[in-house]
């Protein structure tokens, strides 16, 4: 991005730097939500439908992990991915992939915990029907997740909100490299440190607009899906 430009000016003139940053923010956060959903939804549903000693403890821990501090997750992933760390040979530090990994760790507990709650409520409702169907536990999980799919969109959106908003983890593992790992939130942090507060707040408004747009799209898709499913 060039100097002495307002955020509005950058948006209206289609500044390529700004659009690259916006695009990277969306791609990283969406990828993280997708990866986190692949982990979180099955784990959450399984936890909802199984009973074992210490289950309450697991649920408490899972719920607490919704509040994982991003900076701590960032630091842990940094130490793992550093060339001198255990996964250093992959050369992932300071790449968008590292940012996806860190955000996946932040988002997966949110999706898992909300899935657990949603599926458990549904389970209470359909317990007898499902018991009568005489199907195995995995098929039960699948059935309930499918029935809860529209409610689970909210869990995914909560995860996306977390990913799109955080700066603590990705600035550590991504390095805020211009044109490579700079996202909306790290750009806002940078402009703040340059003392360009109007540009920083302008970029903040752009970010909020994007998050609203993503939510609107998801809501529209959910409505359309519900209508289609009857």
């Amino acid at each position, binding site marked *: 991005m060039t*100097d002495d430009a307002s955020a509005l000016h950058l948006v209206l003139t289609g500044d390529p730097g700004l659009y690259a940053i916006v695009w*990277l923010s969306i*791609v*990283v956060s*969406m*990828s993280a939500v*997708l*990866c986190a*959903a*692949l982990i979180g939804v099955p784990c959450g549903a399984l936890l909802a439908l199984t009973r074992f000693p210490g289950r309450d403890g697991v649920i408490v821990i899972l719920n607490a992990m919704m509040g994982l501090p991003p900076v701590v997750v960032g630091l842990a992933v940094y130490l793992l991915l*550093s*060339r*001198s*760390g255990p996964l*250093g040979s992959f*050369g992932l*530090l*300071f*790449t*968008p*992939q590292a940012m*996806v990994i860190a955000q996946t760790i932040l988002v997966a507990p949110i999706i898992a915990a909300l899935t657990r709650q949603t599926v458990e409520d549904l389970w209470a409702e359909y317990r007898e029907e499902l018991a009568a169907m005489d199907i195995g536990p995995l*098929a039960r999980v*699948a*059935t309930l*997740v*499918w029935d809860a799919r529209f409610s689970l969109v909210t869990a995914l959106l909560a995860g996306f909100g977390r990913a799109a908003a955080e700066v603590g983890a990705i600035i550590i593992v991504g*390095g*805020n*490299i*211009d*044109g*490579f*790992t700079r996202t909306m939130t790290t750009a806002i942090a*940078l402009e*703040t*440190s*340059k*003392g*360009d*507060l109007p540009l920083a707040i302008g970029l903040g408004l752009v970010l909020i607009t994007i998050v609203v747009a993503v939510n609107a799209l998801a809501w529209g898709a959910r409505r359309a899906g519900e209508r289609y499913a009857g």
Partner: protein
Amino acid sequence: MLNRRYLMAAAALAGLAIAAQPGFAQEKSIVVASTTSTQDSGLFEYLLPLFKAKTGITVKVVAQGTGKALDTGARCDADVVFVHAKAQEEKFLAAGHGVKRFPVMYNDFVIVGPKSDPAGIKGMKDVGKAMTTIMDKKADFLSRGDRSGTNSAELRLWKASGIDIDKQKGPWYKALGQGMGATLNTAAASNGYTLTDRATWIHFKNKQNLVIEVEGDKRLFNQYGVMLVNPAKCPSVKKDLGQAFIDYLISPAGQKDIAGYKVNGQELFFPNANDHNA
């Protein structure tokens, strides 16, 4: 039923989303761990496209304080470190983390503070006297407190003024643990004094009531040096590309480019690669 095809599609999408990111693009690039001042002053935004046009090498800058940047180099996570604290740099070399240090450029530190100047230090030519006065008057002083080059310089200046800041500091001395820009924002908001490099100061846009109080003492000299991370210790280091960047910085062309970077007509960094004692 949850269709297996949905899962497959989702997995494929996830893979695609990750693979589609720029990290997979093959290109000549190096990672440079540097200080916040070189980034916040806008120098890299100006210099790196010039370097890329000459060599085709993309430089990815991770801007950190000098202490953190050297740590990044020591962990083999950067190819080149470009920082400004000679004593720390020499320690880095002595530990075998770097190959050789090349002086690149200098500018100077200044003490900035509120226009109202509650400690009455404006215009002092002796930085030691100015800092002693700030302490005696218990005027708010914001320290970076982050092992950065500027923080090292500040601690050196207290010491040179005969002050043991660890023992003699009071509530007036606030160590923030933040970058230069954040520290200037805090100084502007709280009418405090702080030490900053001149390049970040000139480029900084939220000055509010802050003005330069003390400048020109030769102890405020601020030298930048560049080092290749030692490939013998870090096999992942791209030594040819990294050395090409260093060679450019200290070449006559690179030195001329550095001198050509101006904000509001003011030169921000002064090339001095030929001064081998710097």
